[in-house]
């Protein structure tokens, strides 16, 4: 009788306002997305009609191809992007396994804020990070954007178009790579094998 190994990981999807966080979760979630979008007000309404005020939640499961292979469940928690909701990020980042930081290549005015957010989000976290550069098709440009927000060369960066589910799945593939490389996953796998 085979033992089915199942691992569940918490993914934090964060980044500045209108970067594409909700789009990422909506494009790839395999369960109905819990979203808390409301009408946007003030000058932010010029950017988009709806904005997240508490969190988004979606799931993604990757089942092993063969019997007995591991199944990986990703629980994706998306944060609001505005600074006034920073307390939600502080709540949601507890016990996170991977951070997916979304930034829009078409919004250079957000890079300074994104750099500050990146520092704040990662403060106190040991988790690996993947930077998803949205509205971008070019790896070199994505790396430039990542550098502009203070990410060093060791951080995984991926260009993406998050309105496209296929692109969202590529981001998730990067997240899985980050997970596989993390020591926590290695330790969990060893524990299962023992």
């Amino acid at each position, binding site marked *: 009788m085979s033992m089915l190994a199942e691992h569940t990981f918490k993914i934090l999807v964060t980044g500045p306002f209108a970067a594409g966080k909700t789009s990422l979760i909506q494009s790839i979630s395999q369960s109905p997305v*819990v*979203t*808390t*979008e*409301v*009408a*946007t*007000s*003030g000058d*932010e*309404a010029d950017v988009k009609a709806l*904005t*997240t*005020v*508490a*969190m988004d939640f979606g799931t993604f499961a990757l089942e092993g191809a063969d019997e007995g292979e591991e199944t990986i469940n990703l629980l994706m928690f998306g944060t*609001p992007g*505005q600074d*006034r*909701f920073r*307390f*939600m990020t502080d709540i949601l980042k507890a016990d996170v396994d991977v951070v997916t930081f979304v930034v829009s290549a078409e919004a250079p005015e957000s890079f300074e804020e994104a750099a500050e957010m990146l520092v704040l989000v990662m403060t106190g976290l040991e988790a690996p990070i993947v930077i998803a550069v949205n509205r971008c098709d070019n790896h070199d440009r994505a790396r430039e954007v990542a550098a502009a927000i203070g990410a060093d060369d060791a951080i995984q960066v991926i260009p993406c178009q998050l309105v496209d589910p296929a692109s969202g799945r590529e981001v998730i593939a990067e997240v899985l790579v980050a997970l596989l490389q993390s020591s926590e996953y290695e330790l969990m796998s060893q524990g299962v094998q023992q």
Partner: protein
Amino acid sequence: MGLVADNSFVADLHLLNPNPFAQTPTLASLVHDRLDPQAILNAIVRSVAGVTGAALATADGRSVAHSDHLAHDPSRSAMIAATMGLAGQLIGVVGGRELEEVIVRAESGIVIVYAVGNEGVLTVLSRASTNLHHINTEVRSRIEVLRTAVRNGR
């Protein structure tokens, strides 16, 4: 007709300012008070014993106005918006579609958050012993004018 109209203004005046010896307002000041969100919030506070403050914000967490003696606190508006956002999803558990209110109760007091249409939220703070029915009555009679205030403040 004029007498009837005048009497309704006086009734409203007593809601806005229960002091009968206060200076008689002008028509312009009455109209202003009817539309001014802070005056509306002050009226709610004065109308129910035990209510200690009221604040109006957009549904996406921006402050619109608050009653006298309640500190301006942008983070409160954001927390309220987040609370309403989650509660709006939670009511689906009981098959609800339109969130009406959220009540947070502690030994030290009560926070009641009302949906003001889809675009606004009203927060009422009160002592723990306050009659919630009275608060509901006062708030619901002013929801439409609050909705207008939110739209004007967006």
